Structures are given as structure tokens and as C-alpha cells.
């Protein structure tokens, strides 16, 4: 462990403090005790010996008085019960030794020849004293006592005791300090541990558990608060850092996009120059031929054709550029009118057919059986379709195939699909192919690379018409499929099927037989009046059964049917009319207050051709009849 050394250091210091305190206290106490005891010991010992001497003197007073040393000797002999007393003597009043005593032979010091003075004399190893023997009337003599006074031995035994007590105390102190350590050191160790974890793993959520309420507990609390603060600040910093990184990324992307745009612009300019120059060489050659060849000759004709084609190409380029400019600045205004879809398709096909033929690509066109009308700007719509077809032609090798498929989608939607077997589009490029100036193939071998604005223009034009344009490709070499959807602008094509004239809508409408069925008499009468004013022949019915009967007796060309009809609702009526061969070809128009997708779907399933939502505008009616202009019956 990294802080093992620290832990040991704190433990050792703690132990040292406890031990040192205990040791010093014990030493001082011991010194005081021993000093006191030794002093007391001497005093007590002297007092004890004095008492002993007095008792001896008292007991021996008669012996002295009556000259009986034997008794005195016997009295002294009693000292044998006091092992410390090594020698004793009784002196007469005139200073002669009257009786004496020696414990054993170890004390060889001679007894004092003369007594006195009274008092004690303490040596290093022994203590001696003289006490006078007095009666109230006179002094009879002296008692002399000599005893062992082994201060050193006593000191030694004291030292032994002190050392023993110290060892025991220090052991107890050590045990107690170990026990106390846990309460003081453990929280500090916990702090160290958490600090370590924070430092190593940057885990600012770590907290030290608070176990005590003392200063250490306060330290733990403060440490935890600090951790929280640091964690919060770090988090803020990191968040700010992330935001900065994001901003930098955004700026880098923007910069990258700018560089990309700049490069695209450069490329576009280069391509433009190239594309503009391309037709110039054939033009110059053709002009040269015209100069040298005789007018009307075959070469002159060829040259004229070349010049015509190249000029048209130049014009188209310039037109594209102008369109790009207009669309980008939002200056394109659609001039909508009712126009047959077939005319638009034909117009587009006419433009691309020479290129298709030139490259030996097979082109198949599938159009719906029902003639359709669009409310659209014919020129723009044709331009969009032409661009799609041009694109398909450009990227399809000779011998390839292009499919143009026009379909109805529901009652009021059209899809135009342009699919080719060309080089396809890599999946990562799909999102960018509609960007302005995008070119997938920058190889010089491509005979026709263009400006990179065709698809972009097509998409924007279709979107201006309220539609959408999508591209799909299964990958490089697997062809591309463009799908244009144009919603809510379906009309019947007025001209006979296959007609390619664009002006069908403006032809004078023919007189039609019309069945009008609605239970609202006001609506039938006003609507009937309007139809009659347009010159149509109108019969009116007020319920489903009546309408069915009238349709069977004299089938009309067009029937406007309410859905909520009494007796037989509009859906059932339409089905019945479709079942009967006699009435099958009537153009059925649902006129209802419900305009939801579900209602349109139900109407289409029941067999209605069109679905109008009340109130009905006269313009809508006119468009319908314009589409019907010269086709009195539905195609089989």
C-alpha cells in the first residue's frame, strides 16, 4: 500500500506519545515515592530503635539499680527477635559496659568504650544510637543499639518494584494506545484511502464515512465537502470543455463545408468553361465547311445540322445556368395550367430521344390506361422530366436500358419513375446527388459530364409543384431509380389517348349527359343549374335507388354522386353501376363533405374515378369536362 509508511509513522508517533507520557509520569512518581520512603524509612527506623532502646532501658533499670548484669544480659538477649539489631550494650551511669549483646559474628565492630552522647548516627550500612536510662529521679546508665541500615538493598528492591510496575504500566499503556488508535487513526486512514481513490480514479463521488463527532469527524466532514466542491468544479470544467469541443467541431464542419463549397465552385467554373468551349470547336469546323462547301451541298447540310445541335446545346447550358440562378434566388414563378401529362412526357422524350438513339440505349415508356391531366407549369415539368431522362442517358452505357413509368397513385397522386441500368450511385453518395454542382464521375472519359445542376434543378422544380423526388440505387453498377411524386393534381386527360398536343385543355367542351344524385334539393338544383349553364344535359335523382334506375334506363357519361344518399349509399351505388356492363363506363365522381384520406380510399375501392369535396368550384368542373372533351367513354 502506498501510504503504509504513513500509517506506520502515525501509529509509532501515537505509541511514542503514550509511552513517553506514561514513562515520565511513572518515573517522577517513583522518584518522589522512593525519596519520601527512604526519608520516612530512616525516621521510622530511628524512632523504632529509640523505642526499642527505651524499653530495654526501662526493663534494665532495676538490673542497673541492683547491680544485676545477668538480668540485663537476659534483657539484651531478647533482641534476638530483632534480626536487624546486630549489637547492643547497656552502660552504667559512670560509663562502664554493664551488659552487651552481639547477634552473630558478622558484626565485628567493637562496642564503643564510652557511652554517649544521646542520639543516632546513621552510616551507609548501619545505624547506631545511644539512649539514656533515666528514672524520674536519676540517670541510671545508657543503652546502645546498633542495627543494619541497608539503604542500598532497600533502594535496589525499590528499583526492582519500580521497574516491574513500569513494565506492567507500559504494557497496559501500549494495549490502550492500540485500542485508542483505532478511534483516532482509522478516520484519518479512511481519508487517506479516499484521497488515494480520488487521485487515481478521479472518483469525486467517493465519501469518507463519518464515525466520530470530534475534530476528526469535523475533518472528515470538511474533506467530504471539499470533495463535493472539487467534483462539482471538475464536472463544470468538463462540461465547458465538451461544449467547446462541440463548438470547435461545428466550426470545423462549417470550415470544411466552406472549403468544399469553394472547391465545388472552382470545379464548377472549370466544368463550365469546358462545357461552354466544347460546342465551339464543332461550330468552328462547321463554319469552315460552310465557307468551302457550296451552298446546298451535302457537306453544307451536315455542317448546318452540326451547328444547329451545338447551338442548342449551348443554349441549354445557358438556360440551365439561368435557371439555377433563378431558383437559387427564388425568382421562379410557376405558370400553372391544366395540361395533359402525356404531353409533358412526350415533350421530354422528344428532347432526349436523339441522345438515347445515339447511344443505342433501349427506352421503354409505360403510361397508365387512363389519360391524366396535371395542374402544372408544362415547361418546368417537362424540364424536370427531361433532366431526369438526360441524367439516366448520361450514366447508362450503350446497350443499356431506361424505363419510364407513369402511374396513378390513389385518386389524386401520380408517380413518375425513371429507372436505368447505368453505373448506379454508391450508398455514401446518395444523400448528396441532389446538391448543386455535385458530380459523381469526374473522369475525363465521360463524353457528357455536364454542369452538375440537372438533378438539383429537377428536384427543386418538382418540389415547387408540391411534389418530391427521391433516388435509390443498389450500389455501383446496379443502376439508379428516380421516383417523382406529384400529389393532388390529377385530372383526366381531355384529348383522345395518345394525343400529344399540349393545348387540349383549351378546346371547347362537348355537351355531356350528366346524372346528378344528392338528397339535398338545393344542392342538386343549384349544381344542376350550373351544369346546364355550361351546356350539359342534366338529370337529377334524390336517392340511390332512383339514381340507379335512371342510370340504367339512360346511361349518362358522367355521374356526380353524393355518398350519404338515402335508400342506397354512394359506395353501393358506384359498385352496382360498375357491375352492370351498360353503366360500367360512366365516369363516377364522388361529391361529398368528407375529404379525409380514408374517405378517398373508400371511394376509390367502390369504383369512383374522382373525389370532390363540397363546395365544388366551377373551375374544377370545367377541368373535368375539359379532360373528357373528346372521350365520351371510359377506356375498357
Amino acid at each position, binding site marked *: 500500500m502506498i501510504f503504509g509508511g504513513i500509517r506506520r509513522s502515525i501509529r509509532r508517533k501515537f505509541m511514542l506519545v503514550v509511552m513517553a507520557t506514561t514513562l515520565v509520569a511513572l518515573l517522577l512518581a517513583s522518584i518522589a515515592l522512593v525519596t519520601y520512603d527512604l526519608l520516612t524509612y530512616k525516621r521510622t527506623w530511628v524512632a523504632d530503635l529509640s523505642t526499642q532502646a527505651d524499653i530495654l532501658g526501662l*526493663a534494665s533499670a532495676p538490673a542497673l539499680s*541492683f*547491680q*544485676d548484669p545477668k*538480668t540485663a544480659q537476659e534483657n539484651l538477649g531478647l533482641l534476638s527477635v530483632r534480626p536487624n539489631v546486630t549489637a547492643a550494650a547497656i552502660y552504667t551511669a559512670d560509663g562502664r559496659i554493664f551488659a552487651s549483646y552481639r547477634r552473630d559474628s558478622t558484626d565485628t565492630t567493637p562496642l564503643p568504650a564510652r557511652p554517649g552522647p544521646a542520639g543516632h548516627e546513621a552510616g551507609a550500612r548501619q545505624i547506631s544510637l545511644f539512649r539514656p536510662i533515666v528514672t*524520674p529521679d536519676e540517670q541510671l546508665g545508657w543503652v546502645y543499639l546498633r542495627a543494619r541500615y541497608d539503604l542500598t538493598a532497600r533502594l535496589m528492591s525499590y528499583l526492582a518494584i519500580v521497574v516491574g510496575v513500569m513494565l506492567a504500566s507500559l504494557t497496559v499503556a501500549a494495549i490502550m494506545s492500540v485500542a485508542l488508535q483505532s478511534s483516532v487513526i482509522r478516520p484519518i486512514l479512511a481519508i487517506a484511502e479516499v484521497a488515494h481513490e480520488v487521485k487515481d480514479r478521479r472518483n469525486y463521488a467517493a465519501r469518507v464515512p463519518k464515525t466520530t463527532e470530534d475534530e476528526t469527524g469535523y475533518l472528515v466532514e470538511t474533506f467530504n465537502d471539499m470533495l463535493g466542491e472539487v467534483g462539482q468544479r471538475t464536472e463544470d470544467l468538463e462540461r465547458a470543455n465538451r461544449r467547446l469541443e462541440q463548438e470547435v467541431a461545428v466550426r470545423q464542419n462549417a470550415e470544411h463545408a466552406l472549403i468544399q463549397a469553394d472547391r465545388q465552385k472552382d470545379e464548377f467554373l472549370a466544368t463550365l468553361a469546358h462545357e461552354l468551349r466544347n460546342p465551339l470547336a464543332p461550330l468552328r469546323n462547321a463554319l469552315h465547311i460552310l465557307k468551302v462547301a457550296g451552298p446546298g451541298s451535302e457537306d453544307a447540310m451536315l455542317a448546318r445540322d452540326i451547328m444547329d445541335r451545338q447551338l442548342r446545346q449551348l443554349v441549354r447550358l445557358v438556360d440551365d445556368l439561368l435557371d439555377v440562378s433563378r431558383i437559387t434566388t427564388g425568382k421562379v414563378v410557376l405558370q400553372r395550367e391544366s395540361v395533359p401529362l402525356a404531353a409533358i412526357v412526350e415533350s421530354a422524350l422528344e428532347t432526349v430521344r436523339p441522345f438515347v438513339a445515339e447511344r443505342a440505349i433501349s427506352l421503354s415508356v409505360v403510361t397508365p390506361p387512363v389519360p391524366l391531366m396535371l395542374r402544372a407549369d408544362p415547361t418546368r415539368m417537362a424540364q424536370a422530366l427531361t433532366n431526369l431522362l438526360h441524367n439516366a442517358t448520361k450514366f447508362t452505357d450503350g446497350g443499356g436500358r431506361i424505363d419510364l413509368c407513369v402511374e396513378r397513385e390513389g385518386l389524386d397522386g401520380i408517380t413518375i419513375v425513371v429507372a436505368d441500368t447505368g453505373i448506379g450511385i454508391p450508398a455514401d453518395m446518395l444523400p448528396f446527388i441532389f446538391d448543386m454542382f455535385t458530380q459523381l464521375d469526374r473522369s475525363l472519359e465521360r463524353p457528357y459530364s455536364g454542369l452538375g445542376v440537372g438533378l438539383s434543378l429537377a428536384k427543386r422544380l418538382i418540389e415547387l409543384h408540391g411534389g418530391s423526388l427521391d433516388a435509390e440505387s443498389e450500389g455501383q453498377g446496379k443502376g439508379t431509380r428516380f421516383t417523382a411524386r406529384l400529389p393532388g393534381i390529377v385530372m383526366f386527360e381531355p384529348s383522345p389517348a395518345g394525343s400529344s398536343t399540349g393545348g387540349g385543355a383549351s378546346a371547347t367542351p362537348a355537351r355531356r349527359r350528366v346524372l346528378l344524385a344528392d338528397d339535398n334539393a338545393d344542392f342538386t338544383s343549384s349544381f344542376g343549374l350550373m351544369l346546364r349553364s355550361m351546356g350539359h344535359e342534366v338529370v337529377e335523382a334524390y336517392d340511390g335507388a332512383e339514381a340507379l334506375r335512371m342510370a340504367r334506363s339512360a346511361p349518362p357519361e358522367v355521374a356526380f354522386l353524393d355518398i350519404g344518399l338515402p335508400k342506397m349509399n354512394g359506395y353501393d351505388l358506384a359498385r352496382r353501376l360498375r357491375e352492370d356492363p351498360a353503366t360500367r363506363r360512366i365516369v363516377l365522381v364522388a361529391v361529398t363533405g368528407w375529404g379525409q384520406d380514408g374517405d378517398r380510399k373508400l371511394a376509390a375501392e367502390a369504383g369512383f374515378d374522382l373525389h370532390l369535396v363540397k363546395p365544388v368550384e366551377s373551375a374544377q368542373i370545367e377541368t373535368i369536362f375539359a379532360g373528357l372533351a373528346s372521350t365520351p367513354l371510359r377506356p375498357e
Partner: protein
Amino acid sequence: MIRWILLSSALVAILHGSARAQSDNSDLERRVKAAYLYKFAGYVEWPDSLFPDPTTPVRIAVLGDDKLRDELATMVLGHTVNGRAVVVSGYSEEDSLEGVHVLYVGRQETSRLPRLKDDARKRSVLLVSEGDDAIDKGSVIAFVLSRRRVRFDISVACATKSGLTLSSRLLSVARTVMTAGS
């Protein structure tokens, strides 16, 4: 005759010599006895009636030994017993034992002990005499010579009969302590 005289003179001389020797010995002996006599007083407890006053001296009467009496009188000068002065006097049979604490009966007068005994006991007088038979004759303490030293015997019974209490410390230095006695 001369022979007798010579003999007698020689005898006298011998006697004299022995008497002198006797005299030297007895001087010392007498002095010891005198000292003992007044020291005995320190170990004896008399009835309180004998000391009506704190200053009442201890009276020691000596019968039949004037030399000892004189010796003692000299010795006690300036000495006290239990703080009391000591008064020494001679004693004759006519004298009363009134106020006497210690009566010493010399060797020559021991025959008078039986007669003195009763009065002494009645008056709590410590009777001190001499000889091995003195106790039997009624003496409380009797000096004896033992190995040429002056010792004494004590009869606790006689002391009790006299109304005296003897300190055990005194008994400890006696040659013999007798519990019997007349």
C-alpha cells in the same frame, strides 16, 4: 600466761586482721545495702494514706545498724524517689512506726522481727532484713550474700499481707521470689 597472751594477742591480731578485712568488706556491703534500701522505694507502691501530701518524704527507718543508717543518710542527700525526698532515721522499739515507709532491721536485730512484724504489716511498712531466715520471720525483702555479691529475696506473700504492691521489675532482679511466708 605469756603463751596465752601471745596466743590471745595473736588471736586478737588475727581477729583484728580478719576484722579489718571484715570491716572492708562490710563497708562496701553496707554501702550497697544502703543504696538498695532507698532504691527499693522506687519499686514499691504504698497505700495512698501513707502519702497524704505530694511532698510527703519517703521515710526510711534503720534498726540495729547505725553505720548503715549514717551511710544511707549521706547517700540520700540530694536524691529523690519518685520525686519525693528521702528521710532516714534510727529506730528503737519505743518508737512508733507511724509515718515510716521502710524499716530496715539489721542482722543483730532479726530476732525482733516477729514482734515488729504485725505492727509493720498493719502500717504497711516495707520490712527489710537480712539472712536466709528473715523472710520466715516476717520480712518482705531479705538481703543475702550470693557469690560475694549482695542479692535479695522477696516474699510476695508478706508484701501482700502488708498491703504493699511490688513492681515486677523489682522481682526480676531478686535472687528468689517466694510466694509463701509467715
